[in-house]
């Protein structure tokens, strides 16, 4: 079947098998390997992307269902070398270790912040329930999401995929983070 999708700002028209999952289309056809697969039961959230501005697990969507849609992956978040505030907050708060869950976690966190611009800890924890992380114990992820909330302009959300002021991640010159 023929589909046309826009992924991270680029339009693609492709023939796909009806059974092809969106995540496999992204990874194998488009080379968008920043989005990863962590399970086969839609439990882990590693594959989370935005479909028309809302987070979906791309392993539970068929590529053909995305026909005509706009998709944003982790690779499409930063613009002109500027990280998205949620990406920056994950770095600043040490919200990742191995980083395998991170693309999905960041995409889900952005969606969560679109629903609630100033979530409390419990809201963040519940909002990330579908995304598993085996490394961090979640505490720094929760902290990062709340930190990002405080940095983001009210109303900025997935539709906008906006980028607020920030520094570049390379070099890690902003050394100190809060310690408990």
């Amino acid at each position: 079947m023929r589909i046309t999708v826009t992924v991270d700002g680029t339009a693609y028209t492709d023939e796909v098998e009806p059974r092809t999952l969106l995540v496999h289309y992204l990874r194998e056809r488009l080379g968008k390997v920043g989005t990863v697969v962590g399970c086969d039961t839609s439990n882990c959230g590693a594959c989370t992307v935005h479909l028309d501005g809302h987070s979906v697990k791309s392993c539970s969507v068929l590529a053909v269902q995305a026909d005509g849609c706009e998709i944003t992956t982790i690779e499409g978040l930063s613009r002109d070398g500027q990280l998205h505030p949620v990406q920056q907050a994950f770095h600043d708060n040490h919200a990742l270790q191995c980083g395998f869950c991170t693309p999905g976690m960041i995409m889900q966190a952005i969606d969560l912040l679109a629903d609630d611009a100033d979530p409390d800890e419990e809201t963040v924890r519940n909002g990330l329930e579908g995304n598993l992380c085996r490394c961090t114990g979640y505490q720094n992820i929760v902290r990062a999401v709340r930190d990002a909330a405080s940095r983001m302009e009210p109303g900025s959300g997935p539709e906008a995929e906006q980028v607020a002021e920030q520094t570049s991640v390379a070099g890690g010159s902003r050394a100190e983070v809060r310690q408990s």
Partner: protein
Amino acid sequence: MTATVEPEVGRARLRKEDARLITGRTRWTDNISLPGMLHVAVLRSPMAHARISNIDVSAAKEASGVLAVVTGADLADEQGSLPCAWPITEDMKAPPAPALAVDTVNFAGEAVAVVVARSAAEAHDALEAIDIDYEDLPVVLDMNEAIADGADLVHPDLGSNASATWIFDSAEAGSGGDVEQAIAASDVVVERTFRQQRLIPAFMEPRSVVVDPTGEQITMWSATQIPHILRWMTSAVTGVPETKIRVIAPDVGGGFGGKLQITPEEIVTFLLARRLGRPVKWTESRSESMVSAHHGRDQIQKLTLAATQDGTIKGLKVELLADMGAYLRLVTPGVPILGAFMYNAIYKMDAYKFVCTNVFTNKTPTDAYRGAGRPEATYAIERMMDELAAELSMDPMELRRKNWIKHEEFPFNTVAGLTYDSGNYEAATAKAMEDFGYDALRAEQAERRERGDAVQLGIGISTYTEMCGLAPSRVLGALSYGAGGWEHAAIRMLPTGKVEVITGTSPHGQGHETVWSQIVADKLGVPFDDVEVLHGDTQSSHKGMDSYGSRSLAVGGTALVLAADKVIDKARTIAAHMMECSVDDIEFSGGSMKVRGTDTSTDIQSIALQAHVAHDLPDGVEPSLDSEATFDPENFSFPHGTHLCATEVDTETGQVRIRSYVCVDDVGKVVNPMIVEGQVHGGLVQGIAQALFEGAVHDESGTLTTGTLADYLVPSAADMPSFTTGHTETLATSNPLGVKGVGEAGTIASTPAVVNAIVDAVRHRGVNDVEMPCTPMRVWQAIQGGSQAAAGPGGTESGGGLGSLDASQGGAR
């Protein structure tokens, strides 16, 4: 060139690794795609124990895009046997371990055939066309039954399901007395049996292997913790010379011991690539990972703890059955043995005996999982300390205090034959109790108990230590391990003044690129950003023993320090020549070589350039500052800490809520407090998950019923509380950095803290144990019927098993 202003060591540097990980610019093995690459799909046995009477692959071979269908029989001549590096006794029984089963399958999930096809989808489709006839064999699942007379056998050729029995006896070792005498001479003897349920490491990145045979060397990318060991073992198994194998561990998405393995799929993919002359990739699904990647824990632990009436511990006897599963993988037999030295924990006692029997069953093989043997030991002894305290009507912290090694008693020779170099249990405990509000919580507990509140409060303690920094090679040799425990590092000083660090450790989330940069920046006085860390590729990082056992910093970090010292020594000679002074007059600090008592100086970058161009070097000095070092530790390191957990247990529903969790860990010198805290958080959640959620369950036919992330309950953010973490810093004396290691601490300490808190909450209702995972059903049953009910059937829940077999026989005598 000025030096970094503040010391790098001790600073919460944000991680270098993050830049690629938060933007999706990662090199997971499954992201690698090579021209002409083929894909492998693996057919796995649905049977736990069966003879393969016939395999028909003819239809699969005809399927679209299929290049080859290969069975165990096809590979029998070249696949050898998967390595087990740890024959714990001379008479250990070890079955052959083919990568692909040849004529029998011994666990459900074992690989029996593979398809190689143009695409992964075509390979998977063709699996369905393979037809296999199995003849049932009796399935062995229960360890006690497995070692009983007349039991059905997993491997009939071995004549027994008992692989080996390993004994430590303090009387024989000379490190203590005879345990039976100590028990006989004691006032109080507590006996308990605990079930350490089987766990699944569940790293988030599924395993993947790509093998490219088209170069002069066969290159293998693998999602592994151990690229160096993998190269060595692949050579040993296949007979391909080590020089013809290059292994690369690119970005690796977690391991926790689960990727400390030479897997059947790595060997098979290697052989297929060689046979077909094309790059070949295998990536597992999560369901394959759950059933076929090695599992962890799975022990039945019987403990006897003897003390005087005033609470002084006299002796401890530990009798273990450890489930190997169907095969002995890389370090399977040694995992419970790593615990042998830890059951005595931080306590002084006269006598100690440890007896472990390793048992075969028709289940997925077990092997290292975060802590490997030591969490099991810590769980058991910390549970026993609470049981003894209850028996003596003592406060459990008071009992611990009475028995632990005091800070002025270090270095301390333990009853298990180790020497603990340093520690301060008093300091960590005092800080933890204060942060926790111990006394106030005890008061609230009494008040709720008084009031008969439906929600009862429990306080759980775990004052743990662990041996890590694996490991002194001579000790590994004495334990019959097949390799050494040293680590290697090299430093390259480039002409531009930049520094390349090569390490034999192999990070998969720990942040070595950042921390190693901090150490080298401090040692050489170069900017943090000027240091690049190379790892995980046997071509650039040619020598190493990889990452596991909280060893990377204590052993690999020390190798780095020693290599830097050599760089400085070489630079000193050239600097003296450049500045026309005696080598003895050179002072080095902050990257600057200064002539003592003068203003004349030069920096290490200039010296590196001078060495590189080599226009004017002293006679006999080689034109290089580059240096390498291999460090073999003299001793293990012994992090310790005090973990306190408050749980609220709803006595009407059995629901457990962690109300607060405070830990104070002493991991020695902290190089990066942010990373250390992250390691503790992650470790805590894995340990708490064992206490509350996780358990690999097999049904009576040997099928894993917790084979997906929907059934095997890896906790989410919503299941976990926030933690209060803190540190004391007692330096290790076994390495120049004073570091001890932090990778496993949280996991080791937290499980008993949580279960102790649950039991403490309902002990007044007659409960003295709840089997893990402490599901609401089990907690509720325990409250209804005392401990026996808690250990009752429960086999249908996640984590169900044998139960705490003779909890009812415990108590004073």
